[in-house]
C-alpha cells in the first residue's frame, strides 16, 4: 500500500514534481509513465526516501517516509535507475550484504538469497564480480537485491531498460508472478509493457499527473478508439474510398496515412461506425487486405497528454 499526498520537489526554481497524489493498493501493479525528465525518477526517489520532498509526503504501508523513514524503508524493495550495485563484489557477496542490512540472518538469509537467485535466474554468474557482468545480468542482480527481503512494496525504476526481448519477457513474468501479494510501481517508457503488466497507468509530464486509469481506459480515451482502419489491396483508389467513407453520417473524419497508406475513419463522439463501414465494404466490393476496429492506441493518448501543443499542431496539419 502506497499513499502519495501532494508530493512536490523543487530544484532551485525548477519544479521537478508538482503536487502529485495517488494511492496504490496491495495487489496492484502501477505503471509510471512519462517522457524523459517528466519527474518519474524524482517521484520514486522521494517515495523510497532518497530525496526529501519540498512539500507533501508519501507513506508506505502506513509509515511516513519523512517522519518514520527506517520503518518505511524496511517495507520497500527498490531498484534505482540503472540498477547500481557495488561492482567489486560478486552477486553472492552483494546479496549477502543486502541481507545483513535487511536484518536477515542464518537460515533466513540463505533461503532469501537462494530464492532471489532462482527468481532472477542469475545462478550462473553468482561468483563473478558484478563489474564483469553484462547489462542484462546486472539488471537482474539489481532486481534480486530489490526482492530479496520479500518486500510488501516494490519500486522498480525502468526495470527492463536495456534488456533484450527475452530478458524483458522474463522480468515481466517475474513481476506478474509476485504481483498478487505486493504493491508494485514500475516506471517505464515502453508503452506495450504497460498494457502487458500494469493494472493501472499514471502518466506524468512536467511534474504533473496528466492521466490516470487502467491501460484499457486510457486507450479508450485516444482518438483512435472505435476508429476503423482499412488497408486496400490496391492503394490507387484510396482518395475515392476516403470520400465515400466520409459520406457515412456517423463518421467524423477520414485520414490516409501517407507512409502505410492505411485509411482510418474516425467516428463522431460516442458512435460505433464499424457496421456501416463493413456494409459499405461489402456493398462496393472493395478489395481490402485488412480491416481493423481500433481499441484505441496507447502511444496516441501518451502523445496527446504529454506534449499537447505539438500533438494538436500535428493533428491540425493533417486535416
Amino acid at each position, binding site marked *: 500500500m502506497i499513499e502519495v499526498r501532494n508530493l512536490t520537489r523543487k530544484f532551485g526554481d525548477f519544479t521537478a514534481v508538482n503536487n502529485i497524489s495517488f494511492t496504490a493498493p496491495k495487489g496492484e501493479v502501477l505503471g509510471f509513465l512519462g517522457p524523459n525528465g517528466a519527474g518519474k525518477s524524482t517521484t520514486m526517489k522521494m517515495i523510497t526516501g532518497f530525496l*526529501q520532498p519540498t512539500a507533501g509526503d508519501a507513506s508506505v504501508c502506513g509509515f511516513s517516509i519523512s517522519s518514520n523513514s527506517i520503518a518505511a524503508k524496511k517495507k520497500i524493495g527498490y531498484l534505482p535507475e540503472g540498477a547500481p550495485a557495488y561492482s567489486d*563484489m560478486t552477486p553472492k557477496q552483494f546479496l549477502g550484504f543486502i541481507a545483513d542490512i535487511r536484518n536477515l540472518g542464518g537460515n533466513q538469509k540463505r533461503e532469501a538469497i537462494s530464492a532471489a537467485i532462482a527468481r532472477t535466474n542469475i545462478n550462473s554468474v553468482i561468483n563473478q564480480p558484478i563489474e564483469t557482468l553484462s547489462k542484462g545480468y546486472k539488471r537482474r542482480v539489481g532486481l534480486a537485491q530489490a526482492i530479496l527481503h520479500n518486500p510488501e512494496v516494490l519500486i522498480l525504476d525502468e526495470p527492463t531498460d536495456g534488456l533484450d526481448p527475452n530478458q524483458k519477457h522474463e522480468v515481466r513474468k517475474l513481476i506478474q508472478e509476485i504481483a498478487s501479494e505486493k504493491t508494485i510501481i514500475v516506471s517505464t517508457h515502453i508503452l506495450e509493457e504497460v498494457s502487458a503488466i500494469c493494472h493501472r497507468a499514471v502518466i506524468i509530464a512536467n511534474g504533473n499527473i496528466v492521466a490516470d486509469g487502467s491501460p484499457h481506459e486510457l486507450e479508450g480515451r485516444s482518438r483512435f478508439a472505435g476508429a476503423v482502419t482499412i488497408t486496400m489491396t490496391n492503394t490507387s483508389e484510396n482518395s475515392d474510398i476516403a470520400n465515400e467513407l466520409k459520406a457515412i453520417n456517423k463518421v467524423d473524419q477520414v485520414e490516409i496515412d501517407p507512409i502505410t497508406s492505411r485509411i482510418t475513419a474516425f467516428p463522431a463522439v460516442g458512435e460505433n461506425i464499424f457496421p456501416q463501414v463493413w456494409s459499405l465494404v461489402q456493398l462496393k466490393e472493395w478489395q481490402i487486405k485488412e480491416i481493423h476496429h481500433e481499441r484505441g492506441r496507447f502511444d496516441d493518448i501518451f502523445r496527446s497528454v504529454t506534449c499537447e501543443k505539438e500533438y494538436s499542431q500535428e493533428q491540425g496539419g493533417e486535416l
Partner: protein
Amino acid sequence: MKNTYFIFSREFSGYFKTPVAYIFLIIYLLLIGFFTFYFGDFFTREQADLQPFFQFHPWMYIFLIPAISMRLWSEERKSGTIELLLTLPITMWQAVLGKFLAAWAFTTIATILTFPIWITVNYLGNPDNGVILTAYIGSILMAGSFIAIGSCISAITKNQVIAFVVSLSVSLILVLAGFPMVQNLFIGWMPSFIVDAISYTGFLTHYQSISKGVIDLRDPLFFISTTAAWLFANTIVIDSRKAV
C-alpha cells in the same frame, strides 16, 4: 550498531579486493622507514627514542590518507550506489560512521605495521615505551581527523581525483596552521588571540606534544572533536548534494 558494522566490513574488505591496498601498505612502510633513517638521523642522534619516526607522520598522512579516503563517497556517487545505500533501512550516521571506521581501521593497520621500528629501538637501547605508546595513539587519533576531512570532501564530488587534491590541500593547510613559519606571517600585525586561534586549529601544535609523550587531555580531545565535526559536516554534505 549492527548496520554500522555491516557497512564497515563491506567497505573494509573493499580495500583488499584490489592490489591497491597492498601497494599502499608497502609504499607507506618504505617511505616512513626511509624518512626516519635518512632524514630523521635515527642513528646519528644516538638517542633511544622514536622522535625522528613520529615527526614524519603528519606529512605522510597528508599525502596518503586522501588516497584512502577519496573513494569513500565519490565512488558511491559516481556509480549511483549511493541511492541504493541510502534507501536501505539505515541511518545516515550509520553509513558515514561505517565508512569512516573502515578507512580508519585500514590506516591504523598501516601504522601498527611499523612495529619493527619499535622493536629496533628497543633492541638498540632502552627507550621510554610509555612515550612511544602515547605517540602511537596520538598519531592514530590524528589520522582519524585526516580521514574525516577526506571523507567529507569525497562526498562533495563524483570525481576521485578532485576529492584527492582538495583533501590534500585542506589537510596541508590544517597542518601548516601550527607551523612557526605560518605563525610568523601573522605575528605582529594580527591580534594575538587570532594568532593563537590559528595556531590552535593547527594539527601540528597538538600532535607534537602528544608525540613527545606529553599527555594533555586537550590534545586528544582536539583530534576527536575535529573528527566529529568533519563527520557531521559529511552527513550535511551528503544530504544536501544527493540530487546533484
